[in-house]
């Protein structure tokens, strides 16, 4: 029963009011992409013990999608941010570095 702060409405939201949306920052591959790209896009997911980036929707509230950076092992939340970005903002990366120096996730660190 996590609590995440919705960056749109500013509320600390109980997990029961949220809908999970899986991994964040996945790049869409449409027509013209290779089979490998499509496979990555549709099926390949990170499953880290530690830093992870996720999509959540404030489903029973303002309805907005947002991203959360958190640790899957300790449940620490490093921050939440707009879903309208292709990479984690610098302040989120800094917050993670403070708690977990040397972290990396996919191409981000």
């Amino acid at each position, binding site marked *: 029963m996590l609590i995440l702060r919705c960056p749109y409405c500013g509320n600390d939201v109980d997990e029961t009011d949220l809908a999970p949306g899986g991994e964040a920052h996945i790049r869409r591959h449409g027509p013209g992409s290779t089979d490998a790209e499509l496979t990555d896009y549709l099926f390949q997911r990170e499953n880290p013990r530690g830093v992870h980036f996720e999509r959540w929707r404030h489903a029973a509230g303002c309805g907005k999608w947002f991203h959360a950076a958190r640790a899957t092992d300790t*449940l620490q939340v490093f921050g939440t941010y707009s879903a309208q970005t292709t990479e984690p903002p610098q302040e989120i990366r800094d917050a993670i570095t403070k708690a977990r120096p040397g972290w990396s996730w996919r191409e981000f660190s």
Partner: protein
Amino acid sequence: MSTRLPSHGRLIDRSAQVTFTFNGATMRGYAGDTLASALLANDRMMVGRSFKYHRPRGVVASGAEEPNALVGLGQGNRFEPNQRATTTELFDGLTAVSQNHWPSLDFDIGAVNTALARFLPAGFYYKMFIHPQPFWKHVYEPFIRKSAGLGRAPDSEARDADTYEHFHVQTDILVIGGGVAGLLAARNAALSGARVLLIEQTAHWGGRAPVDGGTVDGAPVDKFVEQIVSELETMANVTMRLRCMGAGVYDHGYALGYERLTDHDPDAPGPRHRLWRIRARRIVTATGAIERPLSFAGNDVPGVMLAGAMRDYVVNWGVAPGRRVVVATNNDDAYRTAITLKQAGVDVVRVLDARAAGGGALMEEARSLGIRVDPGRAIAKVSGGKRVKKVAICNQDGIGGAREDLSCDAVAMSGGWSPVVHLWSHCGGKLAWDEDRAHFRPDPDRPPLGADGRGFVVTAGAASGALALDAVLDDAAAAGKAAAKAAGHSPRRGKTPRGETTPEAAMEPVWLMPARADTPLRMKSWLDFQNDVKVSDVQLAAREGYESVEHTKRYTTLGMATDQGKLSNINGLAILADALEAEIPKVGTTTFRPPYTPISMGAIAGEARGEVFQPIRRTPMHDWHERNGADWEPVGHWRRPFTYLRPGETVHDAVNREVKNTRENLGLLDASTLGKLVVKGPDAGRFLDMMYTNMMSTLKVGKCRYGLMCSENGFLIDDGVVARIDEDTWLCHTTTGGAEHIHAHMEEWLQTEWWDWKVHVANLTEQYAQVAVVGPNARKVLETLGGMDLSKEALAFMEWKDGRIGEFDARVYRISFSGELSYEIAVPASKGQAFWDALIEAGRAFGVMPYGTECLHILRAEKGFIMIGDETDGTVIPQDLGLSWAISKKKEDFLGKRAQQRSHMTDPNRWKLVGLETVDGSVLPDGAYAVGEGVNANGQRNTVGRVTSTYHSANLGRGIAMGLVLNGPDRMGEVLEFPGTDGTVFKAKIVDPVVYDKDGEKQNV
């Protein structure tokens, strides 16, 4: 025998006598008794039988940890099995029955299991199931079935007579446990100004400290409890609840409290149980400690009891569990029991102290009262069937050669105390092994972590491993302050109350008594009393290769009973560690899972039962349907009429009547449940081109188009008619079940992929009532009502128009899901019933009948129209369904396009949609598979297709069906075999899916 004492009993009111029954026998107790103390006062020591061997079982503990004294409580709609007598407060009229025996508690046939014990070793079930033998079927199985199950399930006709509710609470600090530690921690936290919620599972504040004695700031513990409780009661920022157990601790400071409001007073008004759903910034667990049994032969004979529990019965309830008591211990605390018993006039026959050097000051005090203490001695064996008769004593450091028999009727045992670490552990708090006290205690450096990455649980008092009163108070005072500080408040400086108690000599771990007990003794030394797991079982598991404590637990069922091993786990893993020649902390503990003790299903459900379990969505015409014979079908959260039953009709008759009437005269369908999403904005057309497989941006204003929606995996997820309202507005119809998730699907893509596109989506489903007016007389009835021109010329097929029909503002879509002349008419929801009434009234002259969803299905199936959820199941793509015409070739991209290019999606051997016509006109079974040549690797017939929709068509007078068949469209005329589930084989010919009005002449008039 066990009996009520003339003295003691701090919790009972001797002026208030209470009557209750146990197995039908009337007994008396006092207000303040638990069922267990009252049973003991009535000399009822044996209260049940064990799960596996049906051995006689007596009360062994005095609280939530009790494994044995489980009873069935109440009657009829209030009957509940497996209730602990030790946590059941006595009330007048209570009825209890014992469990796990047949035919009676005192004479039980299943007890012969004991004789079979050597045939029922650890892993018995696994071993038997792996090697089925005739013996199993004819001997074991009937036997086990008779004796299986814990308690009796309530009658299947019974309905819980009580009500329950949920509370949602936010607090700065939650303190779980209202003993001296919890009280002090709560006070220190509250003094900082933080909001504090303090919950205690029993009906009393103070925990067991008042029983154990000692002083706080020079006064008796009772006095301290009284003072601090009244102080807390005056604080506005403190909420206190008795009879409220901390059931579980979860992520980010979520916790569950389980409050039993009327269990002790069943006639009181209000809910019986309340589930507290708590969000706390910090949680203090002041959950105390639980005493460990000693593992000696016969430690399960009724009359053998935990030493601390025996002390509770004397001090709290004025009950002596025996007249002549032997005490066995490895620590000083049990001497408190010996002293208490002696002072209450009970004969303490002997204290057997397993420590060669004996104890400290408490031992001396016991001796000074004339109690004989034998250091270095142990119990070799307890004898007695339904009650302790005698104890054979031996050297602790030996194999159990008996030196002496002591006649007695009760045994108090103490193997030391273990902190209650459950709530600390639920959410990931780690444990440290305390060598000196031989227990696991919370490791404060590895707490469960919250969202901020810091620990959110602090332990206080005995729950931290601080067992002596002075240490308890010091630890709790600090815990309260630490929690307040962590929750963002400034704790006040102040003096910590000073506890004083007799100092104790060091305990010595004793995991087996005597230390090298021989096999016959180990086979009678119980670890898990409820599930009948013995020392020998755990040792056998280790010999058979079970090294993980989690595996051993499951193999032996150690700790898997309703008490979840509160007494047995540490002893069991110590035995396992010994057998594996490993250190105890290396073997580790099993996982602690919530709830701490079982909570009622009623409390979990709360108010969500009956009509409020799930709200029902109703169309504006719902009540009319109800009054006119609707046979309801749930569709999502909606209820839709399956058909409208007339007096004397069967469902089949009614459906056939509706099907024929709609084709021949006039039918009305309440289509209000269809999803209606408005998509609007400068980029709406571009957006819909991505959402649908076909082109929507080119749709002309005033026109409609049937559209398909696929997931990014390429699979068909929804369909419906899209109407273009104006230059930048489209109205998308979804399936009834699809409105919400298709709306969410659109939002997801808009917000997370194309967030710079200017589009809004609004769900207008409930804003409109929509009626399908269907059949050859459809235009006539609308013309009778008057208003807008609905001629073929004014409104052609697949067009829509706004206007007035009679006195109603209406939007009319000329679309058809039946193949008939059909208008789908939307009016404001508030006008829905009036519009429906007007249609029914005007329709009388034209043979109007309302029709339900089954008629809708049959009409569409006759036309070969697919239904999402029938023809699709998440693995079907439009190309499978002959819908390639609805997939744009021009568009560069749409959701699912790339995935549909995958090799498996373009495989010519995908099963494709066809019609199926039974050779004899019968109706194919839904979901039946067509079988082909040969068998698969499992020896099953190969399958070549399956039925997706199947009905009786009253119009054609025979069964019609659709299905997906291997190379189906190329096999027209071929007859397939569909085996039924009863051995019959259905034969059906592959035909065109459209079996009615192939050229569409009926709808195009």
